């Protein structure tokens, strides 16, 4: 029983961290209506941006996360403006293909600069905390807090600022938002900044636990898709619920499956949800 509880706790913590890039993916989908597969490389870029700030700049992990957000967000705006936006009139699928190509290109920029080696962040060594029979790593706990802060900030931004409201308006009904004078291009840039920034934070948080290399983002991308699809593509609360579901399911799968199959859990979850309830747990509609 304690083992199961431990797995549950691990799963909830992993799920909270996973929710950050999943929100990014689903937010971009909600506003721009295409699955932006380039998210993987932006997560990697964020992780490396945070890495440079942490090791060369000497920032502590929580401050380096802000750098990760800014770097990935800026690259996201640039890559979208230069590469993906001109293709959007050609349709969601063409844009999605271009996003895969963009992903490979960006991943190789990281590889060119940093090489293929695994790199670790500069972190103080800490002993795990023990609460009853449950062990929790301080770093994991800090990641959990960072993820929660990021999500709270996003919520406040979307709920209370004018720009946040404009973003939700475009996601809800682009034509109506346009009639009301919302600048769709600006909202598009903004959602890319926020979405890819969140991807960068997610990439860095995942890297803090282990190490980073040019494939860091790509390795988790399946779980990110799964979280977004399970929760309902385009729904931000859905991405959180989906991420927690996937996080717990991946950990619980360890009871029955080899650890390497954790990511396959996400794929099975996608097939399962699409068969039974295509709009996901919290999604309003499926297209």
């Amino acid at each position, binding site marked *: 029983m304690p083992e199961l509880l431990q797995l549950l706790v691990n799963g909830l913590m992993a799920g909270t961290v996973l929710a950050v890039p999943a929100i990014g993916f689903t937010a971009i989908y909600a506003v721009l209506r295409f*699955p932006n597969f380039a998210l993987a490389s932006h997560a990697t870029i964020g992780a490396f941006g945070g890495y440079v700030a942490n090791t060369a700049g000497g920032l502590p992990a929580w401050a380096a996360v802000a750098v990760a957000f800014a770097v990935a967000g800026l690259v996201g705006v640039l890559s979208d403006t230069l590469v993906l936006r001109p293709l959007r009139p050609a349709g969601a699928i063409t844009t999605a293909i271009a996003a*895969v*190509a963009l992903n490979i290109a960006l991943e190789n920029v990281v*590889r*060119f600069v940093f090489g293929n080696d695994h790199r670790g962040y500069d972190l103080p060594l800490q002993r795990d905390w023990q609460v009853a029979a449950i062990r929790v790593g301080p770093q994991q706990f800090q990641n959990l807090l960072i993820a929660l802060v990021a999500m709270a900030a996003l919520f406040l931004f979307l709920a209370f600022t004018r720009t946040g409201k404009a973003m939700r308006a475009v996601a809800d009904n682009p034509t109506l938002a346009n009639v009301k004078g919302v600048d769709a291009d600006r909202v598009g840039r903004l959602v890319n900044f926020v979405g890819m920034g969140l991807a960068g934070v997610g990439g860095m948080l995942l890297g803090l636990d282990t190490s980073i290399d040019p494939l860091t983002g790509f390795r988790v991308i399946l779980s990110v898709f*799964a979280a977004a699809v399970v929760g309902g*593509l385009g729904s931000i609360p859905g991405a959180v619920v989906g991420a927690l579901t996937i996080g717990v399911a991946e950990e619980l799968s360890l009871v029955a499956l080899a650890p*390497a199959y954790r990511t396959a859990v996400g*794929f099975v979850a996608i097939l399962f949800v699409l068969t039974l309830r295509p709009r996901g747990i919290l999604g309003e509609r499926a297209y």
Partner: protein
Amino acid sequence: MLTFAGFYGLMALGLNLVWGMAGMINLGLVGFFAFGAYVSALATVNMGAPIPAGVAAASALTAGAGVVMALTTRNLRGDYLAIVTLGFSEVVRLVASNEIWLTKGTDGISGIPGPWRGRVTPETFNLIYLAIVAVFVVAAFWLLERVRHSPFGRVLRAIRDDEQIAAVAGKPVVAFKVQAFAVSAGILGTAGALYGHYISYVAPDSFAPLITIYAVLALTAGGTGDNRGAVVGALLLVFFMESTRFATGWLPGLRPVQVAAVREFLIGASLVVVLRWRPGGLIPERIPRA
């Protein structure tokens, strides 16, 4: 090298059927390719099946996997099919890396038989194999050209251009899409199986997502919707890849990993460029007269 052009040509032809004609997307091409390669390798190495039987099994099973994926996303927008196929290719790699009892994990399966391998000189083998692959490419080309000019192909184009109108016209849209996807997956599986018998070795690392980009690049460069475009595009692709190998060899002072990074970057970037400025490819589609 021409043999590789043949593999990419088969993949581009398979992709053309679903994307070029039916407007469905498959971003996990490499997954189907790998699946076919492993099926045929296992059938011939572990079960001692003859090579044609292995290739046939690869086509059939890959087509089956395609049916499952097309059915799962049958009522959804194409984005979902993109996510599912991309996920499929990753799962194929995961299974291939971890089911060591079956696939020997990351070590890969070696000693896959090739026709007359060992009984003729390697040069002759390469020539024989090139001929075999060429026969497959010609057969797939002929088959797909027949499809393109047939009522079936016309319905697929109608579905691509407007699914609702096709449905209103009384066409069973889902059945058409599933069939197209299955045939396409079967072609990809065949290409994978042929690849395995040629290289004589398959390992999870051989099936990186980059291969999907190669095939998409071949098709879009040649001309989406046109089968000749797929074949021409594959030749161009191999030429392009060889010339980047040649060109990056001249860049001074780069470590091998940087050279590899530059080449992969160029492949990704050129796909973006083609999509942006030459979406019709070299040979734009001409709709055959009914």
